[in-house]
Each structure stands twice: as structure tokens, then as C-alpha cells.
């Protein structure tokens, strides 16, 4: 029972982190038909900026906000300068975002060095509860809380605001959105940058969890997010939420019982789901 509870918390916390990446990825994919291969890079930029700010200011909130703001701008620049040039050309989009990923990942190594840098958890989140045989790390509970908050936030954004209306409409008929006098490009930039900021939030929260940040963490987390987007159904927000939780829980369980299999488990799961439901669990397939 204790183990069950612990795995539940660990799994949900992991799921929350994946969700921060996957949700942005999924919305960008749904609205613009773009797979953003820079997402993992934006994630580590978030992590590194968080650490750099935290080591100077010792303020958790300020560091998280700084990471998100800076990467929001970076995302906007990516979209404006590069991605917007190749809308509609899927191979070029994939290639160009991959190239940016290479450059900006190496830039991280140039600025902060190739070896991982460490950071401590902020004091108010550093504790743990011991309940019976299970240890519950405060920070993980905090992650679940943040994940939930972000999910609710995105849900409200999509269902209640004008931006959300444009996103829902643009997924289906971007040309018609334009024909109503709406500059959809502006929304594209905003959504891309917003997704980047979420990835940065993921990176900023990931660093204190593992205690360090390395330039290779980006790709690893990006792959997890991709798997979530694929199994959740490309472009489906709900799918990315459930996919993240699912993957997080499974990761926690496998890591506990058969750690040697944890690398292959995710992909096996993805393969199985695709074998039975080629469009993913929430089948809003983007056939572009």
C-alpha cells in the first residue's frame, strides 16, 4: 500500500513534468501543423536560465518566471525568423527546427559548459513526509499541483478566451479564420512562444527535482513528450494530458519493479497503442 501510494505520487509528478512539454507541443502541432523539434532545447534553456537566476537571487518564483519569459522570447524569435518561413512545407519545418535544436543545444554547452550543473531545491520545497514505509517528497507533490494548475489554465484559455476560440477554429480552418479579418500569424507566434514558455517551465521545475541540468536532458524529455503526443492523438490537448499521466505512472511502476526495462517500456507502449489505434488514443490525427 505504501509503495502504491509512493509510486502514484512519483508517477503523477513525472507525468506533470511531461505534460508541461507535451501540451505545448500538441497545441502547436494541432494549430499550425508544425512539430517543434526545438522543444527539448527550449526545455533545457528553461532549466539553465532557472539555475543561473536562482544561484544569483535565491528566489524560486523569480527564477521560474525569468526562465519562462526568456524562453517565451526565444520561442517568438524561432517562430518569426525561421518557422514562419516554412509553413506548409512539412519536411522543411522538421529540418529547420532540428537544426535550431543542434545550434541552441550546443550554445548551452558554450555558455554553461558541457558538464551538468547542479542546483538545490528551494528550502520551502526541500522536505519530505514519511508515512509508514513510503517517502513522499514535497517537491513532487508541488509538481503535481503545478501540473494541475497549468492544465486548468490551458483548459480555461482554450474554452473561455478569444485566443482559445481562434486556436480551436484555426485547427480546423486557418484560411477561414483569416477571411474573418483575424491575423492568424499573430496567434501562431503567440502559441509557439507560449508552448516554448511551458517547455521552459518544465525545464525550470525539472532542474530542482533531479538536482542538476545537463544539455542532454532536453532530447530525453522531448522524446517522452513526442511519445505522449503520438499516443494521445496528435493535436489533442486532452490526449496529451491523459497520455502524460499514463506515461508518468507507467514509468514510475516500471522503474520500481523492473528498472532494466524502463528504457524500452515507453516505446513498447507507443508501438502497442499505434498497432491498435493508429490515430492515437484520442484520435485527432493531423494528417498533414
Amino acid at each position, binding site marked *: 500500500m505504501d509503495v502504491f501510494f509512493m509510486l502514484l505520487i512519483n508517477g503523477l509528478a513525472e507525468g506533470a513534468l511531461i505534460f508541461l512539454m507535451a501540451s505545448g507541443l500538441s497545441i502547436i502541432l494541432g494549430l499550425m501543423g508544425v512539430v517543434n523539434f526545438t522543444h527539448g532545447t527550449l526545455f533545457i534553456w528553461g532549466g539553465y536560465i532557472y539555475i543561473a537566476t536562482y544561484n544569483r537571487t535565491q528566489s524560486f518564483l523569480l527564477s521560474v518566471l525569468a526562465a519562462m519569459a526568456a524562453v517565451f522570447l526565444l520561442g517568438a524569435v524561432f517562430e518569426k525568423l525561421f518557422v514562419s518561413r516554412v509553413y506548409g512545407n512539412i519536411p522543411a519545418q522538421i529540418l529547420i527546427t532540428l537544426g535550431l535544436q543542434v545550434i541552441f543545444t550546443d550554445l548551452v554547452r558554450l555558455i554553461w559548459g558541457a558538464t551538468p550543473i547542479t542546483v538545490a531545491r528551494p528550502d520551502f520545497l526541500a522536505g519530505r513526509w514519511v508515512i509508514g514505509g513510503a517517502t513522499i517528497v514535497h517537491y513532487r507533490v508541488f509538481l503535481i499541483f503545478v501540473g494541475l494548475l497549468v492544465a486548468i489554465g490551458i483548459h480555461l484559455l482554450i474554452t473561455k478566451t478569444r485566443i482559445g*476560440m481562434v486556436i480551436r477554429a484555426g485547427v480546423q480552418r486557418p484560411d477561414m479564420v483569416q477571411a474573418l479579418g483575424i491575423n492568424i500569424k499573430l496567434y501562431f507566434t503567440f502559441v509557439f512562444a507560449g508552448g516554448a514558455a511551458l517547455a521552459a517551465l518544465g525545464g525550470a521545475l525539472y532542474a530542482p527535482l533531479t538536482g542538476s541540468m545537463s544539455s542532454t536532458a532536453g532530447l530525453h524529455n522531448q522524446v517522452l513528450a513526442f511519445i505522449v503526443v503520438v499516443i494521445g492523438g496528435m493535436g489533442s490537448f486532452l490526449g496529451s494530458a491523459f497520455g502524460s499521466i499514463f506515461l508518468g505512472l507507467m514509468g514510475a511502476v516500471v522503474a520500481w519493479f523492473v528498472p532494466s526495462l524502463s528504457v524500452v517500456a515507453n516505446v513498447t507502449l507507443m508501438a502497442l497503442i499505434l498497432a491498435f489505434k493508429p490515430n492515437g488514443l484520442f484520435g485527432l490525427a493531423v494528417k498533414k
Partner: protein
Amino acid sequence: MKSLLKIEDLVSYIGLYTILQGVTMEVNKGEAVVILGRNGAGKTTLLRTIMGLVNTRSGTLALEGRSLIGRPTYTIAKEGIGYCPEDYGVFDELTIEENLKIAMWKEDKETLQRRDYVLDLFPDLKVAYKRLSKTLSGGQRQMLSISRSLINDNKIILIDEPSKGLAPVVIERLAHALQEIRKHTTILLVEQNFALACAVGERYYIIDEGRTVDEGRMEALMSDKALQSRHLGAI
């Protein structure tokens, strides 16, 4: 009468294909103009070219003297053009309310008055106001599409084959609504249904193989059987 939309020798292309090969027409303020022509004549492409959704190669295209060529679609719409595409262009994942709301440029008193006006015009929409648009029938979608194009103070609305795929009863209701709308709005209508075209249009243009080949007053076409069979026999 004041000229509103002026098109001269318009040539437009999609990829390697030139679709419009020289369209010339004029729509005056307050008029209801119908575009007739066979399938594939370029009628839909003409409307899409006006909206900037298809590239223009040469010619002029201007609304109240302001050129629309080479401009992004959303700025063309902002000039005061409402557009109802062939497949209605209704957003399925939005409610009817949201479909109207997303089109509003501002939510002032006039806009809300116009909204109430279209809801009175199409009571179906009022009944289903909070429902997702994907639950609507074809006719209701068309009504929503037209309502949406009227929600802003547009100078002209472009409607692409509203009767397509609709039952005769529904077409009749649509004709009444369009007759009502044209009292205060300029309409450019693409239509293959001759009855609907007659009910709404004052003047017509006929397009064939991407060119305007004939124009005139609707009464002339209605009364002249020879003219009808010459053009509409081919329609």
C-alpha cells in the same frame, strides 16, 4: 450609383495553373450581383481571389478604389468584406455563439444589434445558440455562415453557392432571407440554382473558362429564353 468593388482583367493562378484568365466586373453599392457559369468556370476561385486566398498575377481588384491585390487575407476582410465559402467555413468545435463572436471586430452596441438581427432572421440559430456547430444541419450551417458575414458592418458580402446540397424547402427560406438582407447590404453571389439567382440578383455576370463572357440585368436574362438557353443550357 456608387461603384464599390471593381475588377478588371483579373488573372489568378494556383501553382502552375492559371485559373482566372481575365475577369472584369463591377459591383455598385447596394446591388445584388449574381455570378453564373458552369462547374469549373472559375466562380469559386474568383471569390477566393478577391479574399486573397488565391494569388493574383495581373489585373486590378479594388474596393472603393483601394487595391486588394497582394495583401494578406485578414486585411482584405477588414476592408469590409464578408465571405461565405462553398463549404460554409463554419468552425465545428465552436458553439454558434462563438462562431459569431470570433467574427466580431468589436463588441459594441451596433454589433450586438446586428447579432440580434441575424438571430431573428434565422431563428434556428437562436434555438441552438449554445450548441457546438458540428451538430447543425447543412442549411443551418449556411445560415450561420451568412449570419457571421453580417455581424460586422461589412460593405459587401460574398456568398459561394449557398443552395448547394440543400433541400428545396431550405433553399426557399434562404431566398427569403437573402431578399431581406439585400435591402441593406451589397451582395455578390455565386449561384447555379437559377430560381435562387433570380430571386436575389439584380444583375448578372457569366463566367466561362476563367473569363467574363456576358453581363446584363437579371430581368433581361429571365425574360429572354434564347439567352437563357445559350448560357444556362451550358450551366
